């Protein structure tokens, strides 16, 4: 019998601590599949954030180093500059990359740092209990926007990927989602391209992934998948925001 689906080699045999319906476990798996397929397990260095994914090093079977909140792009910069043979990726949430780490992200992109950023957007601060994120939608209720996010008091959902796309040193920016088999496949393709760009020395790549957080959204996993389609992706449209790699799509 042919085995057509199994645990990626670079994913440890550990039980995820993530909530049911959370997107992190899917994205972890996708990254590990890409690492396996590209055969870079022995030179990959991951930089996970504080937050729900802080224990990413219990799951990824590659070298990893925890970053301070928001500093992933700066830490990855230091790693890559001191050890250019490594394949460095950051794994960051919306609070991490789009609030406290905005400066580090934009400037790493602008220096054309040859690194890969995987950006998980679930529109809330997950680990701390569902507070407003920079990407929280207008009207969305969180523990710190109990009356719904209001534009005149809390501002607008920040489209950080669009900002990064404006920066010349960013060569590839795509927004994906992991709320359906088709979207999951597209996400994997984007992650693969973001790693390939680094191997080819092209510059900064960012893959934003709309990811369900049923616990803090107070939805069932299925409702969360639908909410990404019907609400979240209306504010954060999926697709390639920028691609100046000049590399023809593998497909």
């Amino acid at each position, binding site marked *: 019998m042919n085995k057509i689906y199994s645990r990626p080699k670079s994913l440890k045999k550990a039980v995820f601590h993530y909530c049911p319906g959370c997107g992190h476990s899917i994205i972890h798996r996708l990254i590990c599949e890409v690492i396996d397929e590209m055969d870079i397990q022995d030179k990959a260095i991951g930089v996970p954030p504080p937050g729900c994914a802080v224990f990413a090093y219990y799951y990824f079977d590659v070298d*990893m180093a925890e970053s*301070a909140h928001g500093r992933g792009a700066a830490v990855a910069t230091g790693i890559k500059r001191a*050890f250019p043979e490594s394949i460095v990726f950051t794994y960051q949430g919306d609070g991490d990359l789009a609030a406290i780490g905005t400066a580090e992200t934009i*400037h790493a992109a602008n220096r054309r740092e040859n690194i890969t950023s995987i950006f998980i957007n679930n529109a809330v601060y997950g680990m701390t209990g569902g507070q407003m994120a920079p990407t929280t939608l207008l009207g969305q209720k969180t523990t710190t926007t109990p009356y719904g996010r209001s534009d005149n008091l809390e501002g607008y959902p920040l489209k950080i990927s669009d900002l990064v796309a404006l920066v010349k040193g960013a060569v590839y920016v795509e927004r994906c989602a992991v709320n359906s088999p088709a979207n999951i496949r597209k996400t994997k393709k984007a992650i693969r391209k973001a790693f390939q760009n680094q191997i080819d020395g092209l510059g900064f790549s960012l893959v934003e992934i709309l990811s369900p957080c049923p616990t803090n959204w107070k939805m069932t996993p299925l409702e969360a998948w639908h909410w990404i389609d019907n609400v979240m992706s209306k504010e954060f449209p999926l697709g390639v925001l920028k691609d100046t790699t000049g590399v023809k799509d593998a497909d």
Partner: protein
Amino acid sequence: MAKALMTGNAAIGEAAIRAGCRCYFGYPITPQNELTEYMAANLSRKKGCSFIQAESEVAAINMVYGASLVGARAMTSSSSPGISLKQEGISYLAACELPAVIVNMSRGGPGLGSIVAAQSDYFQATRGGGHGDYRTIVLGPSSVQELADLTHKAFELSDKYKIPVIILGDGVLGQMMEPVEFKYEAPEELPIRSDALRGAKDRPSKYIKTFTSNPAELEEINWSLFRRYELIKKEETAYETFLTEDAELIVVAFGIAARIAKGAIRTVRASGLKVGLLRPITLWPFPSEAVKDLAKKIKNYLVFEMNMGQMLEDVQLALEGQGDISFYGRPGGVIPTPSEVSRVISRFYYQKGLK
């Protein structure tokens, strides 16, 4: 190498390159810019090396963290307000037991303060500085030559004990030019730490982290850090004494203040006053035992600092209520002259009834 005439800031840069520093990440702030500029000129295009003018001091220290993770000798520098911003990264470096060298060419504070030399960052430097229970080794040079020597030593100590090392200078030391001799040649190959994170090649993957949800595990980590700190106290405490043999009064001063005090002591010695100097070279660990030893025969101490009395507390702790301690300080970036300090020393000397 023959002697060169250099600013203190440039001397640190040259000494760092000769110590095998691979990465320098900085951000402009006066009075340390000559160091950043020296690295831009002399490190940025060197094979295997990297220089970045970062977007902030926060980013710079986190780049140092990244470079240290993969085993490079890495350095950043700043001055007081910028060093406050670096404390987050220093705490992580300490927690992860990663080497790094951080230079503080300190200036007057609080706030934006002034751009002139001050010693008001002593507490911040010697008490850890950031959040959590930790220490860093703190070196307090008092000449351009010593800046160069201690920069080399800083990289050695940092690697040996896997601990961030702070070089606490000041605006005067950074800006002034003096002859300096470099005692080390740059290594042929830049060093890479053997336990670094360099990919799971021919070994299982590993990770470096600080977070744990288990307080007992974190307690053990803290204990382990402090066991190493005890070893550092025992092995690495350094200080200089000057004319203490027959002294009736000891001036305790560090860094540029000690340099000023030396001039003042020479002046009062010419008038027959028996005054000596104790100059801590390691500010942490503080040379408490040296103070205690002096206290066996000398009762009177004058602590002189360019702040409102910070090292004073370490002298008080070392003396444990023994001795008679006076303090003279000039905060805010005012630089006292040797003649001013000699008058202060004479006044205390006679007030204490010493002959």
